[in-house]
Structures are given as structure tokens and as C-alpha cells.
């Protein structure tokens, strides 16, 4: 298929030789991983300029993933957003049910090029784990997924999916037993098994080249959305919006719009029970610059550089770090970042389900909740694209408990 489905950044916004976007990024990794991380950078540089790699990935994106994903206008939902026109970029319709497959297929092909036979990955909500397990089944790679013990409980459906696909799922019992700790454990595995193992990192964080490479693999989201909105609405949107945990779906949507300076880039972080309560994962809103998982970015930390335990109802956003390119977009003012509470996200989840017949992931519901406010601010002439990064099937147990949907339960019983 055409290479239009995989277009590395043509406009700049490339990290420098040391892997920095402005003050953010770099490679803070143990010596044991330097050779492996360098190999990823060298192989990715070669691959992205190799027509056979680009063609193979393009073919997979079309014929396996089902790209391009739809751009769906949601007028009944938009009535609750002050009448602005809202379009959803339907990454939930991709094979495996989220945007994560875009990056996974790219890195799985890279794994084969490097001659490695085993893949490890972290996962929070399980979407990256499911996508990785899927690609490993497709390419015949051994697969181990690290997932915080708390997340294996709240996303049990995805644990079963990964095991069905042949992956080993390791429940991580250290620290906060969520995404951060799953990443720690994956790094420990990588250090010990780096000869035959690729760490298929799932977001735009980590050491260089992961932030730039993962972004390139997701850039197709914004490239498609930009073309689709011009066809459908005849103009560029006033804003594009996405939820932000590590930041992969957001940068995927934002990136193609960075040169369009009239298009606002708005990321919605998880405010959990409220930023003021301390129980949140709003890294750019409430964090400070620091180093976590291999790069300098914003992190949630105390005065002595200890990482603090994040909280969000959404397992996929429950992370005390953020990709360095988002920190850079915040520092330049090009990106805007706001925080959305658990409750606002859950209300938006139900609203989209009942007005449009689309059940979003709790992660994506943070962007939808933010879009309701953003739409009101833009007014009736506003035009907005929201990244619907994943579908909500995996969240039905959490949502059923939250809203009291099980027989005999009352709404809010889990609160």
C-alpha cells in the first residue's frame, strides 16, 4: 500500500542528536541497555527510509488494522457542548480496539529486522498489551507482558485476551502495582535478556529514540484526520483534543497539526478525585521536571525526587510521567494541557454511549469530557476533533460498578 500511511515528520520537530525536544528527552539508561537502545535508533533510522519497510507497514495498517479509521460527527453529543461541531477520530475501530496497534505493528516489524525473537511490553489498561500480544501472534514472536497487579484486576478482560493470544502476563506486585511499576519490571527483564529481546515500549516516553519513533508510528492518526476534516468540513478545526497519559494517542493526533498554528492542541490529563486532593495523575498540570523511565520530562514527585503514586480511575492514564515532546509543547505554549476528574470522564462516557451509541474507553472519555467544555468555549461556530483512542468494552466492569448497572446495585456504589 501507499506510503502515505506512514510519513515521518517532514516539518521539523525532530529531537536533536542527544534525543532532546528543547529541555526534554535524552537517554537516562543503564550502561547495559546502551547498545540495545542505540541499535533500535540505528535500525529505525534505516527502516523509515526503506521503501520495503514502509510498504509492509502500510499494507498492515490498511489490510490488518483497517485504516484509515473513520471520522465520525457526533451531533447529539455536541448538543451538550454548546453546539460546536464535534468529530471523533475513531481509533476505537482499529483491530484490537485502540490506537496502540499503530505503534505495535511498526515496532514488531523492527523487532524482526533486528533478528530478535522475543518481545516484552508494559501495559496499563491492557490495550498496549493486547496489541503487542496480537502482533507477536501474527509474527511468531515470544511475548511477555508486564501489568500492575491492580490493573490486572480492573482490566481482567484484557488479561484474558492477552493469554488467549499466547502471551505470558506477569502481574507486578511492587510499588503502586500500576503502570509505572510494570515499566520498572519490564526494564529489569530487558537488562537481563537484551540479546534476544526487544522492549516494545507503548508510549511516547522512555529514552530516545522511543518518543520520536512511537510518535512517528502514530502520526498517521493526525495525517488522516487532517485530510478527513478538510474533506468533510471544508476547513481545519479550531482545536484537536485527546487524553494524555504517557501521551501516545495525543501526539499521534496533534503532530500533523503542529504547523497549523491556528489549530489549538489540547490534552486532557486525569485529575482523578481532583488535583487539589493529591489523588490524580495530572503530570503536566501538577508535576515538575524530572527523570523517569529514561528521559527528562515532567513527573509527579516529592521534594527529594521520589516519584509519588498516581491515581486515576483509568488504568491507561494512571502514570506519573509524560512523554517529553508534550513537555516541550507545554514549554513553548503550542500545547495546552488541562485536567479532567474521574467523575467528569465517567459522565462523558455515559453521555456518548446514550447520545451516539458509541461506548468509549475510560481513557478516551477524559478527552470527551474536556471537549464538552472546550466546545462551549468555542461556541456554535466551533469545530473540534476528539481522538476516540479506544473502545470501552474492557471498562464495562468498572462502569457497571460506577453506575450501578448490575442487578441489585445502586449507582455510585464503588465511589
Amino acid at each position, binding site marked *: 500500500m501507499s506510503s502515505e500511511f506512514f510519513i515521518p515528520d517532514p516539518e521539523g520537530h525532530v529531537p536533536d542528536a542527544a534525543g532532546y525536544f528543547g529541555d526534554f528527552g535524552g537517554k537516562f539508561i543503564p*550502561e*547495559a541497555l546502551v547498545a540495545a537502545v542505540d541499535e533500535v535508533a540505528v535500525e529505525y533510522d534505516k527502516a523509515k527510509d526503506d521503501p520495503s519497510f514502509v510498504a509492509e507497514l502500510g499494507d498492515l495498517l490498511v489490510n490488518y488494522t483497517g485504516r484509515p479509521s473513520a471520522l465520525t460527527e457526533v451531533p447529539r453529543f455536541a448538543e451538550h457542548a454548546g453546539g460546536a461541531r464535534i468529530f471523533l477520530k475513531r481509533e476505537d475501530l482499529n483491530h484490537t480496539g485502540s490506537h496502540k496497534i499503530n505503534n505495535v505493528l511498526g515496532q514488531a516489524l523492527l523487532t524482526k529486522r533486528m533478528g530478535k525473537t522475543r518481545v516484552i511490553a508494559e501495559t496499563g489498561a491492557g490495550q498496549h498489551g493486547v496489541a503487542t500480544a496480537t502482533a507477536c501472534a501474527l509474527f511468531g514472536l515470544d511475548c511477555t507482558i508486564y501489568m500492575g497487579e491492580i490493573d490486572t484486576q480492573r482490566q481482567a478482560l484484557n488479561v484474558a485476551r492477552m493469554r488467549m493470544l499466547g502471551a505470558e502476563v506477569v502481574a507486578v506486585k511492587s510499588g503502586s502495582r500500576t503502570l509505572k511499576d510494570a515499566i*520498572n519490571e519490564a526494564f*529489569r527483564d530487558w537488562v537481563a535478556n537484551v*540479546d534476544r529481546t526487544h522492549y516494545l515500549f507503548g508510549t511516547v516516553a522512555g529514552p530516545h529514540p522511543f518518543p520520536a519513533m512511537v510518535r512517528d508510528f502514530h502520526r498517521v492518526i493526525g495525517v488522516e484526520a487532517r485530510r478527513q476534516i478538510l474533506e468533510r468540513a471544508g476547513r481545519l478545526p479550531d482545536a484537536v483534543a485527546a487524553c494524555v497519559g504517557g501521551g501516545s494517542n495525543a501526539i499521534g493526533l496533534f503532530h500533523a497539526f503542529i504547523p497549523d498554528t491556528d489549530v489549538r492542541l489540547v490534552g486532557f490529563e486525569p485529575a482523578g478525585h481532583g488535583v487539589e486532593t493529591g489523588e490524580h495523575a495530572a503530570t503536566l498540570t501538577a508535576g515538575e521536571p524530572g527523570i523517569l523511565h529514561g528521559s527528562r520530562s515532567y*513527573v509527579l514527585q516529592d521534594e527529594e525526587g521520589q*516519584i509519588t503514586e498516581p491515581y486515576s480511575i483509568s488504568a491507561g492514564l494512571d502514570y506519573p510521567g509524560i512523554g517529553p515532546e508534550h513537555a516541550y509543547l507545554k514549554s513553548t505554549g503550542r500545547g495546552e494541557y488541562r485536567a479532567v476528574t474521574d467523575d467528569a470522564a465517567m459522565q462523558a462516557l455515559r453521555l456518548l454511549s446514550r447520545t451516539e451509541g458509541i461506548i468509549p474507553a475510560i481513557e478516551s472519555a477524559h478527552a470527551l469530557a474536556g471537549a464538552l467544555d472546550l466546545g462551549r468555549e468555542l461556541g456554535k461556530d466551533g469545530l473540534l476533533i476528539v481522538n476516540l483512542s479506544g473502545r470501552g468494552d474492557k471498562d464495562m466492569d468498572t462502569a457497571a460498578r460506577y453506575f450501578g448497572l448490575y442487578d441489585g446495585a445502586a449507582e455510585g456504589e464503588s465511589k
Partner: protein
Amino acid sequence: MSGNIQLLSDTLAKAKSENRAALVAYLPAGFPTVEGGIEAVKAVLAGGADIVEVGLPHSDPVLDGPVIQTADDIALRGGVKIADVLRTVREAHAATGAPVLVMTYWNPIDRYGVERFTAELAAAGGAGCILPDLPVQESALWREHAEKHGLATVFVVAPSSKDERLATITAAGTGFVYAASLMGVTGTRASVGAQARELVERTRRTTDTPVCVGLGVSNAEQAKEVAGFADGVIVGSAFVKLLLDAPDLPTGLEAVRALAGELAEGVRR
């Protein structure tokens, strides 16, 4: 006040002049308590260790195995602060005259302030720092301040390090080179592989700085084997595990002292 980088070098040179390897012990500050941690450091030195690395516990110890993760967790839950780590360094050095380094991850120092940390570590009598997630290409600011305050910058090299990179690392490092015996995180291993000897030989071709071997060493037999080809033998998790498993602190301290004695015999070949 300048740090004790010279004391570190002199200690390694003295061991060499005695035709033996130095014994380097690791213990985390604040574990099992701040006072207990200070006593443990004194016990390991009394037992025969030449040099001590005091761990500054971190919430996300990605290069540590379960034993040190558990100890770090206990220390942090106990409320250990950087001031406690510096006090551990000060009291251990003052009581024994031995060189004491700090080993930690980069974020706590970045957050605390590089100038503030290096000045306070030097004032506490510290000899230097090991920062395993601060690679040489990110280390310029650290090295500038460490040098200013007379502190060693000990870099880690790994079996996967290519020769040209070894040369870059050893050119930037001071005090000694920490050669990781294997590809993995901290923790005891049944055997220390041939990779360690080969790495020490490759490292020696790039530098005259002493090369100490760590990761996996837990008993006198292994210490003896490593002392056959390295300038120092680094032991951490084996000491920490004794403290974790002990029914009470005095028993743990005695076990730490006894193991240090056995290992000190081992490094004398």
C-alpha cells in the same frame, strides 16, 4: 571542604600493594531504620570491608532486584530523607576513616540540586558517587560539580559495552570502574560468569583506574574467584538479605559482620 576521592584511591592502592582485591560493600541508608542502617555500615567495615557504598533509596529502583527493592521500600516507608543518607555517610566515615560513596539513581540528585548535593556529600566526608542511570553523555554537569568538590564519579560498564564506548566511559570516570559481572539487576547469583573476567580485561586496556566487579557475588568462594582478576569485589544484596532475614537487628548486624569477614578472607586469595 573537599571530598575524599584521594582516600578512595589510596585504599584501592593499599589493597593492591597487599596483593589482594579490595572488598566493597553496599548497604542502603535508612534500612531497617536510619540508626540501624548506620550500625550496619559500621558493622560491615568492622568485619573487613575496605570501602562502603551507601544506597540512597529511590521509589523506582529499576536496576535493583527484589532484595534491594524491598529494603528501599522499607527505608522510604520509614521516611528516610537525603539528610539521613548524608548523616549515614558522615557517621560511618567519622567512626572508621573508610572511604564511603553514595549509590543512587539520578532523579533524587537532579531534584535536590547537583551543587547542593555534591557540596553536602563532600562536607559529610563522602568519597564519590555511583549513578547507574546517568550515562556518560548526560553526566557533564554532575562531573563538573563532583570534581569541584573532590568526589569520585564511578561509572558502570557492562558486558554489552563496546570497546570504543568503554574508552569513553573510563576517560570520564574517576575513583574506580564498576564492572557489572553480568547482564541483569542486582541480586545474588549461583555463579559469576566468564563475562566478568573478559569485561575486566577489556576495561583494563582502556584505563589504569582500578576495576571492581559487582552484581551476583555473595560468598567467599565467588569473592576469591573475582579477586583473581579484579581490583575490587562489590557485594550488596547478600548483606541486605541477612538484615532482611534476621529476627532482630543485633542478630542481623552480627551476620553482616561475619559475612564481611568471610568475604575479606576470600579477597585475600
